[in-house]
């Protein structure tokens, strides 16, 4: 199998370097507030990283194009799944506004949950006992 393409070591190291760099970029960007652009930037960077991994580490760049087709197909079907589902979930209220939102936006079990501090401990003693009982109930 010596006729297979052997990628030079330099390429691999450069690819890994780029991946680290892009990771740093995406974390750095997340500290700024660009509104909905944050999502677009984060997904754009993730897609760049994913493409690099697929093309170089997974050898799709040098492989039989059938394999690339297979991979692109998977993304295409995933795209179909997401887009077409959103056609429903994003437009429920199109004609009758009652249909748009659930009747209760908050599941009922929250009513019996006590408020907690940042360590998950109930804020006051009384509700702590109740909370303990609740857990036994499960």
């Amino acid at each position, binding site marked *: 199998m010596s006729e297979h393409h052997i990628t030079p070591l330099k390429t691999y190291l450069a690819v890994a370097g780029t991946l680290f760099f892009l990771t740093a970029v995406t974390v750095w960007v997340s500290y700024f507030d660009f509104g909905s652009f944050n999502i677009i930037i984060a997904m754009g960077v993730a897609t760049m990283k994913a493409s690099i991994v697929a093309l170089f580490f997974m050898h799709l760049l040098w492989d039989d194009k*059938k394999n690339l087709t297979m991979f692109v197909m998977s993304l295409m079907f995933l795209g179909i799944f997401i887009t*077409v*589902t959103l056609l*429903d*979930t994003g*437009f429920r209220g*199109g*004609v009758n506004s009652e249909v748009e939102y659930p009747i209760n936006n908050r599941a009922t079990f929250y009513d019996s949950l006590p408020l907690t501090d940042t360590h998950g401990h109930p804020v006051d003693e009384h509700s702590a006992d109740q909370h303990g009982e609740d857990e036994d109930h499960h």
Partner: protein
Amino acid sequence: MAENQKQNYLTHPKGIMSWLLTLDHKRIGLMYLFGGIIFFFLGGVLALGMRLELAAPGNDFVSNDTYNNMYTLHGAIMIFLFIIPAIPGALGNILLPLMLGAKDVAFPRLNLASFYIYTIGALFVMYTIISGGVDTGWTFYTPYSTTSTSNVIPMTMGIFVIGFSSILTGLNFIATIHKMRIPGLTWYKLPLFVWALYGTSLVQITATPVIAITMVLLILERLLGIGIFDPALGGDPVLYQHFFWFYSHPAVYIMILPAFGIISEIIPVHSRKKVWGYKFIAFSTLSIAFIGFLVWGHHMFTSGQSVFSQIVFSFITYFVGIPTGVKIFSWMLTMYKGQVSFTPPMLYALSFLFLFTIGGLTGIFLGAVALDIHLHDTYFVVAHFHYVMQGGTIIAFLGGLHHWWPKSMGTMYNQTVASICCLGVFLGFNGTFFPQFLLGLRGMPRRYATYDQQFAELHNYSSFWSGILGLSIFISIMNLLWSLRKNNKLDPGTNPWGGMTLEWTHTTSPPHPHNFEEEPVLEHGPYDYDKVIVEPTFKK
């Protein structure tokens, strides 16, 4: 050479372990066939039980709960344990490498593994039945499936496991079709059954993972209350339906595409005529497989999904109709200027054309949103999908079984009995399901154990004919099995229908353990009845 001729995959090697651990695709195919027929029988018995209950309006035979268990298991067994694995797993496995001139599928060990995964899934289903059944319907709609006290978890586990068997078969076939063809066997020289299996496999590997993850989410919803599908916890039941039908609509094409492939083989061979519109049939297979991924929402026209998606789904649904129509016309015209023999496989193919056309055309009614709102979840839908699944897939499966029986088993069944059974299946099927269209129009909902007096006459009629249907299928399978009796062997050189594909022309019946004595050399295309004469030979 004489000794070699006696050696075939059925008799060599010997012993039970040589079957259980076999890597031979033909033996694995036979094991699938055996498993499939057992579940076909079980599903059929459940169906007849349901028809018995429905013969009269009240709870005359079983209680509501028993009926709900029966129809759920009938659906789940027929779909997940019989139709989906039966054609690709049985006929596909036996024939695919033979048609490609290969010695085996690409990954024989994976092939055996996928059979055993199927068996494990089947065990889960059997456990469900023994431990009290499941009553949610094969669709497992939430929140009923998350609150029902019946055995939802083992059943969904079973479906999850069977999904992997389906995925492994699919990826095995794709690799086989791409890489295992003999030199010279280009895409346009492939038998159409191979194209059909290719389309099927693509759908299998793309759609099946989604049902697997859906079943996982459903199980977690029951165990942990994750709140994705259960409205009591903030989830959305309509989202579950999207997940479910993203698999289950393409699954319809996993079921019907191989049937198209079988019909595309039977009609040219038994008409001794070049197939009409080879490329149209081949590409319509792929386009149906693709469009099938975009139309799942037509199962949800009354679910409350957005009006926008209703329109989009209805629109795309019609694009499935066009390539399907092209196929039907092409099969019909294949007989033009041919030499049509009315053999049992051909009779099945002709009944397929009749029944599947009805099944396809009634789909047009259901694709029109306004009309579907009236017909949704009524017996019209029940009749429609039985015309497609039974009138289409199962009839084609029986036809294929009769067509390739002499090839795979080396024996010939009684053709007169087989033809009479085919007629019985045809009449019994129409008698059972045609009245159900009328019931649906009148507004008879599906999944009812009892019903109003106004529906009694048609239900009673349907039940009567279902007995004839069941009996005919039973006798036709017994007829096949009876041919396996001693001293009924055909001469290994037999080619009873004059088939032209590699499995008929280049190997014995039953085939050699390694398929071919030596690698076949392609001499002509699969349907070159205008260039080469292949005499049908029939020798004991």
